[in-house]
């Protein structure tokens, strides 16, 4: 029975647990329930992925599309969950990262949040996850808005919870809130314009009814506003201003989910609207979306990486690096060919593993040292060997060294750029990697080649319950660098699906 209701249950399970959180007591029970809920969602996502993907079935088949009309109302009247090769893949990323990060959360949250608030923290945490999972599956544009807003609302609060370490988290949170709400407002205007010329909110129905309307000025405006709104949500340059403070000062597990997953969900909606709702023809042939996005993507890569080099705090460095990495994803999007899209999608997967892993490492450091200044890491290479090895391995992935998963994504991106004959873009990817070498080396050098300060002399390796989950993510990112057949296979399937939509 459960097998037939996965799209609904994946979202409902975390929501359900979030609801009972406030009546739980102190102690580990909230964490335990949250972990169970997030792993249950993850398990269901895997089953759903197998149901959808043609690659995982034997013999390999074309990917299925699963439609789940909520309340049994016929589409387009009712709201529909629609899972295809694209969002099954994104869903897997969201659920996987959420599950591992929640598993890690226990000590980190107990360290960062006053005990009487922990259960409310997990409640907001699960609402955040539930919203992200829902956005990924929803086939109704207004429903997407509502779900984006619930995950955003929860994340504003979660970011503000970083104030117990640094009051700047509050400033980051309010900026994120104001910009995020304006972005959501722009998205809503886009939805309104589309609704007024088509009379529908369902994505599949929209795409058929928009077909004859490609010259309609209202549709062009709607697309522009949807794009701007989503660029705010995914922190694409130059609308990334909220990201460094929000991701840099939030509690580490919140940064891990924001940087690893939340901005990717914004990127996913962009893929969804551009390819399956409006179509390649409209987005890339009629409008100059390609050049505009690759311009901003290039700037994001260069400015983000360059600013990352100048940071003195590890978490802010990682945050600026996320600005650059979103640039790579947008770059792949703008190429709109198979290799480019595969690169972007597989980078969503790979970067989620690496960046969430690295933020978990930053959380371990904050747990042990109480701060995340890079200078404080001096000499920790010997004191905390496993943690620092994870930091290094994740950093190598950000650079895109061969045999790490970062290399796989950049390989596809470069081939995508060359396929289109856009050699400067291939060059930008390489320059971005060079800049990443500088900011990663800056950290690695301090960790391994500087003598430990007096305060760091007594530091010991962190508990395994923190190091192990961080290593699951970093280890997975290494594994998918060596054997990329699963990750890039699914991404390629999704890319082909997107290109077959027009």
């Amino acid at each position: 029975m459960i097998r037939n209701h996965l799209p609904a249950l994946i979202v409902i399970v975390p929501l359900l647990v979030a609801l009972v959180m406030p009546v739980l007591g102190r102690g580990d029970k909230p964490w335990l329930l949250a972990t169970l809920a997030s792993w249950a969602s993850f398990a269901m996502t895997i089953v759903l992925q197998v149901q959808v993907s043609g690659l995982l079935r034997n013999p390999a088949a074309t990917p299925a599309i699963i439609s789940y009309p909520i309340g049994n109302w016929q589409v387009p009247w009712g709201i529909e969950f629609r899972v295809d090769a694209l969002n099954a893949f994104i869903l897997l990323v969201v659920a996987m990262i959420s599950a591992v990060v929640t598993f890690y959360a226990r000590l980190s949250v107990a360290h960062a949040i006053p005990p009487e608030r922990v259960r409310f923290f997990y409640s907001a945490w699960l609402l955040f996850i539930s919203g992200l999972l829902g956005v990924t599956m929803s086939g109704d544009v207004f429903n997407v808005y509502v779900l984006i807003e619930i995950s955003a609302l929860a994340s504003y609060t979660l970011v503000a919870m970083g104030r117990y370490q640094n009051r700047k988290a509050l400033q980051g949170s309010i900026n994120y809130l104001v910009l995020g709400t304006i972005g959501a407002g722009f998205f809503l205007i886009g939805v309104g314009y589309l609704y007024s010329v088509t009379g529908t909110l369902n994505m599949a129905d929209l795409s058929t009814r928009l077909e004859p309307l490609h010259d309609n000025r209202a549709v062009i405006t709607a697309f522009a506003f949807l794009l701007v709104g989503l660029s705010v949500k995914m922190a694409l340059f130059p609308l990334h201003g909220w990201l460094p403070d929000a991701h840099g000062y939030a509690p580490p597990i919140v940064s891990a989910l924001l940087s690893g997953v939340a901005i990717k969900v914004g990127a996913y909606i962009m893929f969804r609207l551009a390819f399956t709702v409006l179509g390649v023809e409209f987005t890339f042939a009629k409008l100059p979306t390609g050049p505009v996005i690759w311009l901003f993507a290039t700037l994001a890569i260069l400015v983000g990486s360059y600013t990352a080099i100048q940071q003195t705090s590890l978490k802010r460095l990682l945050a600026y690096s996320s600005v650059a990495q979103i640039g790579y994803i947008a770059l792949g999007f703008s190429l709109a060919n198979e290799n480019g899209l595969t690169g972007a999608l597989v980078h969503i997967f790979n970067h989620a593993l690496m960046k969430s892993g690295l933020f978990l490492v930053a959380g371990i450091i904050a747990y042990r040292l109480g701060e995340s200044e890079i200078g404080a890491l001096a000499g920790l290479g010997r004191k905390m060997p496993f943690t620092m090895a994870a930091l290094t391995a994740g950093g190598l992935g950000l650079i895109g060294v061969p045999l790490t998963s970062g290399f796989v994504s950049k390989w596809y991106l470069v081939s995508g750029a060359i396929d289109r004959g856009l050699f400067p873009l291939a060059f930008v990817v390489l320059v971005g990697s060079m800049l990443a070498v500088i900011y990663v080396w800056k950290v690695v050098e301090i960790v391994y080649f500087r003598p430990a300060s007096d305060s760091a002399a007594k530091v010991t390796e962190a508990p395994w319950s923190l190091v192990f989950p961080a290593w699951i993510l970093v280890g997975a990112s290494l594994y998918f660098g060596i054997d990329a057949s699963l990750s890039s296979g699914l991404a390629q399937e999704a890319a082909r699906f997107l290109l077959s939509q027009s």
Partner: protein
Amino acid sequence: MPFFELYNYWIFILLMMIGLYTIIASPNLVKKIIGLSVFQTAIFLFFISLSKVAEGTVPVTVPPAEVYSNPLPHALVLTAIVVSVSTMAVALAILMNIKQAYGTVEEDEVDQAEAH
């Protein structure tokens, strides 16, 4: 004449822009939140304008009428209003924390306090 066909849309744009201007131009964070409320409410006006049918009535079928205005945008706006007031509540709670931490809610003063 396009004016009578479209003026409601243009007013929504004007109101929205006044809200957006308030958000950007006011350094006071509370004022920004007020601006945000003006901005969002203006977007809702757009949706309600879409639902209006000339000579239509309130979409309640008791007593029955010939033409009803479209109930769907009404339902959407009801949801969106609730979302917007929830966002406002969270924003104000964050501001109270900022006041506690920095002693001010003027954006530039908060920035200055951080620079030192």
